[in-house]
């Protein structure tokens, strides 16, 4: 392992060191704020490391292979940066979430350790070029997600209802994710049996030699794809999504929806492009079917939801469906650019939406510390649509930010979501995938209904009758800052998309 190779994985080294430092720090000085500070410092320095490595890579050969397990190139670094930025947002959200729910007997610091572990897994996954590193990274991600999903249980002051839901969410994810992992592992074994290689380039060579239509290889790839589809909650592997999203602490929901999915998309992109699986019609057809089903079913089921987290869960299923229209464009520069742009749009918007939901719920809990009493009606449930009635008049800035997120999710101009949708259309037209485009249009029309209904509930005239949702919602400065910066990103990249396009093409 040369110094250059070591330097190339600097972001991963920074993250690993950060985990150790945080562990040591926590064993000597317990402190919520200190833990947050260390976490943010680690994440920011990992970002800086990404930039440094990117500079090195562009001076050098364009990509640096590290021991055959990892491959550092521009796209991996770009996705890694995106994930690290989302992790920063999640850390801030987590701080706001835990602030109201912890006392001297609880240990909020573990949240940050788990978060960093998850980030180490996600970043490794993005760089993976070998099934060993791929599998390790995936498992690291999943293993740190289980306790995070159930974090509301860990001796803090969450209402009992939240604790039960959180536990349910963690267990559900554990069982189903383990099943999916087993399928994926079996798939890897079959691929190995067919090709005799575990690294992506080796598989590509073997595939080219023996012809890609070997049944063993196809079966393995299909199984692997199913495991990935589970992580991405593509229909029909989406059943876990709404329950897990609803039950998990909201910052963790944001984490699993952005980092959890973004890393897998980045990996799939590299795997498909590296092994040239776009040439296999059976696989692309499979993906196309899953994409269409995700767009339609995700949007249809979202129509029925009153709980905002469940609504966003179904809407995220649909959005990953849209993303795969660009993904199916194949191994072209434009397809990758479209996927990257849409992923950025999706991550920013989803983070923003969950941030608002999380901050609103935190402020609701702050009014009733300990909040053990049962929820009387939907209007006093901070996760229900009715709680947001008239929010625009009570807290205009907060509601304005949520409105921007909703419009972006619906793909309305001036927002980053519109440019993302535009990329999807451009990719679909270029690839001449008319059926998929029809599904995108139909899905978007369906989606409008529930995004708009939530949006219009916020501007309704009626003042809420129940006491649960009256008065302006007070937010902590950190939460407010996060919300405004996400909205700013959303608007700037929506109005001047050229900036982000340049970055994507430059990286």
């Amino acid at each position: 392992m040369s110094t250059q190779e070591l330097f190339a994985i600097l972001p991963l080294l920074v993250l690993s060191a950060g985990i150790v430092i945080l562990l040591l720090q926590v064993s000597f000085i317990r402190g919520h704020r200190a833990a947050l500070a260390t976490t943010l410092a680690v994440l920011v320095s990992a970002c800086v490391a990404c930039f440094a490595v990117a500079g090195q890579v562009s001076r050098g050969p364009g990509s640096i292979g590290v021991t055959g397990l990892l491959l550092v190139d521009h796209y991996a670094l770009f996705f890694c940066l995106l994930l690290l930025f989302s992790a920063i947002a999640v850390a801030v959200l987590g701080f706001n979430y835990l602030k109201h729910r912890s006392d001297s007997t609880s240990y909020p610091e573990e949240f940050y350790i788990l978060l960093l572990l998850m980030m180490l897994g996600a970043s490794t996954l993005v760089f993976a070029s070998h099934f060993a590193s791929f599998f390790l990274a995936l498992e690291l991600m999943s293993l740190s997600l289980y306790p995070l999903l159930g974090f509301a249980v860990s001796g803090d002051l969450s209402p009992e209802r939240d604790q039960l839901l959180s536990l349910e969410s963690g267990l559900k994810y554990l069982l189903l994710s383990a099943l999916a992992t087993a399928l994926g592992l079996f798939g890897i074994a079959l691929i190995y049996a067919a090709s005799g290689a575990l690294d992506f380039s080796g598989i590509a060579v073997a595939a080219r030699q023996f012809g890609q239509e070997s049944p063993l290889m196809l079966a393995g790839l299909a199984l692997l794809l199913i495991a990935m589809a589970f992580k991405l909650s593509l229909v029909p592997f989406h059943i876990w999504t709404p329950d897990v999203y609803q039950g998990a602490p909201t910052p963790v929901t944001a984490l699993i929806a952005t980092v959890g999915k973004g890393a897998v998309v980045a990996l799939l992109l590299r795997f498909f492009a590296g092994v040239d699986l776009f040439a296999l019609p059976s696989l692309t057809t499979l993906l196309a079917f899953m994409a269409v089903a995700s767009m339609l079913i995700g949007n249809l089921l979202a129509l029925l939801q009153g709980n905002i987290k469940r609504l966003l869960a179904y809407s995220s299923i649909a959005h990953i469906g849209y993303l795969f229209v660009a993904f199916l464009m194949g191994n072209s520069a434009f397809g990758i650019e479209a996927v990257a742009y849409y992923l950025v749009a999706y991550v920013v918007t989803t983070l923003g939406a969950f941030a608002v939901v999380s901050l609103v719920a935190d402020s609701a809990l702050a009014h009733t510390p300990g909040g053990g009493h049962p929820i009387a009606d939907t209007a006093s449930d901070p996760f229900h649509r009715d709680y947001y009635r008239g929010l625009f008049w009570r807290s205009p800035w907060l509601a304005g930010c949520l409105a921007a997120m909703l419009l972006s999710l619906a793909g309305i101009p001036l927002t980053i979501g519109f440019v993302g949708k535009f990329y999807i259309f451009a990719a679909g037209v270029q690839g001449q995938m008319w059926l998929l485009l029809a599904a995108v249009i139909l899905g978007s029309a369906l989606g409008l209904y529930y995004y708009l209904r939530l949006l219009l509930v916020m501007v309704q005239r009626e003042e809420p009758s129940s006491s649960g949702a009256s008065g302006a919602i007070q937010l902590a400065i950190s939460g407010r800052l996060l919300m405004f910066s996400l909205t700013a990103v959303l608007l700037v990249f929506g109005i001047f998309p050229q900036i982000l396009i340049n970055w994507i093409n430059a990286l």
Partner: protein
Amino acid sequence: MTLIAIIPVLFLGGALAWLVERSVEGGSRWVTLASLLISCVLLASYWPQFSQAAGEAWWDSVQAPWIPRFGISFFLALDGLGFLLLALTLAMGLFGLIASWDQIQFRRGFFYFNYLWTLAGVAGVFTAMDLFLFFFFWEVMLIPMLFLIAVWGYEQRIFAAIKFFIFTQASSLLMLVAIVALVYLHYDASGQVTFNYRELMDSEIPLGIQYWLMLGFFIAFAVKLPAVPLHPWLADAHTQAPTAGSILLAAILLKTGAYGLLRFTLPLFPEASAAFAPLAMTIGAISVVYGAILAFAQQDMKRLVAYSSVSHMGFVLLGIYALNTIAIQGAVMQMIAHGLSTAALFALVGALQQRLHTRNMAQMGGLWARVPKLAAIALFFAVASLGLPGLGNFIAEFLVLVGSFPVNRWLTVIAALGLVGAALYALWMMQRVFFGEGEKAEEDSKVHDLNAREATALLVLAVGLVFLGLRPQPVFDTAEPAVVYLLEQMESPQSPNAVAESSPPNSDSNAVPAKGTTSSTTILNAMAPGSETL
């Protein structure tokens, strides 16, 4: 350069109105008024081009790169057609503001914010010459309109707002796909990615694909227009919107559909449009008759006016797809005249609703004695809308019928039946609301008549309609270059380079259209009842 200033003035005016209302009660109305007047002054700077009849086709243009990656630029341009519609937009914006000056009590600042942003979006639609920018403005005008309906509307506002939005948004996504496909085909042929309207006009597309792309555009515009199978959003949206919102919808937003057909669908896809014309004319004729029948069957006065719009806009569709100068001029005239008359009718219904708290015609009746001014003005606009000779609507519908008669006799006959229907529903409405015995007459005898503000605003529109009816020639002259240009595109699609050169057709450069121009102008002169005889 003044062109580029109009849109920011409206956008900033909206933001300012919102801010001002926070500190000054009712100040937002004055800010709105001011920014509309400033825009009018800016638009009036094009008076020289307007007054000289045969000038350059394009009066002004502004272009700046926006998203170079896709060849998208911020490209605005103004021609006669755009000027007319922009003038209509600002005038109706002013009218809507004044007619409903004191009707908005709840969150006034946000109301006028949305009001001005809708107008800004429409102004952008009428001037955008880049297809991406056009789509952008097309969407920008929707969101504020959505809020206008959903927040300040009547009983079923949420339902109406969402229905309105889903219809328009889903159809405009079809248009977005068609736009992207058009750009891609152009890129395939020329190797250049651009959304520039004038450059895309050059692309030669095989008829089969052209037909599909044309349909994508057509459906988006037909929803807006609205044409019959795609009209269900209209009645709910118009009825549930607040008065000012209904005025914007009926007088301006419907016109964006017709404008889109004229500006984009026909010139970009000439052969496909020619092939589609009979079907489009049939849809137009059906809309005329069906809209009239539906209007006749309504109990709700506002719904009646809304369905009458379907009928009147059917004439526009019929005229546009007759593809000759007379009919298209008639369609343009109809866009303006219908804008004025329907805006006035919605203002009157709004005034009645404010006074009687009902729109149900069964509960009205015998109002003439109690609100004589309102009733007289309503009678004027009702007969204007049924096409009384001497008023703008008559000129418009007559020209459409004259122009489409040689193209398709039977459809013209069917559409002409719509005039009978219009007479029926308009007079029936007058009878039920203002004449006869009133049910609520005794209960609340103290109903205010129109005040000076409302009466003035309505009278100005009435004068406008009379002027259009007696002296329509300035409108024809202004729209002429755009119409001739359009028909030239339609006739000689295979020699696009002559047209696509930056200076569009002057009448002397090309003999055949010039002849057509003069002949059509003479016909128009002969037909305008006022210009010579009065």
